[in-house]
């Protein structure tokens, strides 16, 4: 019974951070800050959403259905894939944006730009 409440709690947290990610995408001024909103909030959001699925799987397994293990283990693997691909993708987009000349809006400092001028 407690497991059900934990599942609802985790889903709530996950959905809240997903929503913040979406708001951030609209509010922030340029590609880099938007990537911050997209990666951060989506990662934390998807961690909690997948954790709620894992708990559901473990609960099903505990209650005697062996298919619960499939649900739990596959979701953990999906979470690992998200944690690896999410920063890699963000890194690739940011690098491509900077190489094609998109400057960070309102930047206080840009060490990378100086470095590119030197070359």
């Amino acid at each position, binding site marked *: 019974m407690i497991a059900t409440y934990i599942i609802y709690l985790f889903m709530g947290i996950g959905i809240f*951070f997903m929503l913040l990610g979406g708001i951030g995408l609209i509010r922030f001024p340029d590609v880099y800050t938007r990537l911050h909103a997209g990666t951060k909030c989506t990662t934390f959001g998807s961690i909690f959403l997948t954790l709620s699925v894992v708990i559901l799987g473990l609960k099903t397994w505990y209650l005697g259905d062996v298919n619960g293990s499939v649900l739990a283990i596959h979701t953990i693997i999906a979470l690992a894939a998200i944690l690896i691909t999410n*920063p890699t993708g963000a890194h690739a987009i940011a690098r491509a944006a900077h190489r094609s000349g998109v400057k*960070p809006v*309102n930047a206080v400092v840009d060490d*990378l730009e100086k470095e590119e001028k030197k070359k």
Partner: protein
Amino acid sequence: MLAFVVTSLVCFLTYLFLTTGSGSIAGLWSIEEILLGLLLSLFAGFISQNIFIKDSYRMANPKRWLLFLVYLFGPFFIGMAKANFDVAYRVITGKINPGIVRISPGIKTDLGITMLANSITLTPGTLSVDVDEKTNDLYVHWINVKEEALKKKPVDERYICGSFPKWVRRIAE
């Protein structure tokens, strides 16, 4: 030969991990799945042995994997949780002070710098944009640049990623 055995073993374990719930051996697997998994992992090990194991068996040490798990659930998770509350605050208030800074963590291996760059991207208001491949310096987009951090160049990595470089060095080097 050792590379072949290690690669096949890893493939086989992964296959077993993915096919739980198929039968009754040890409560989880069926005999068909185990036989097919063995066949496929031998085949995959034969093809990919030179890709999977490149230079050394450094990462085969279970102590490194244990340290990795400690890092993942300890300092990294705390850092990421803080990141999310910080970014959530900035999303709601719209207060940002962005900039790209250079940090010099002094990590030598490719795996180490990959791990550090990914950790930085997942933590408070920081996003790794580019890497200097000669010196393994990272260029980090920072959403809230602190004035005192800019006095020294390259910027002290303490401001950006705390104790991550120390952990990465213990895990991957």
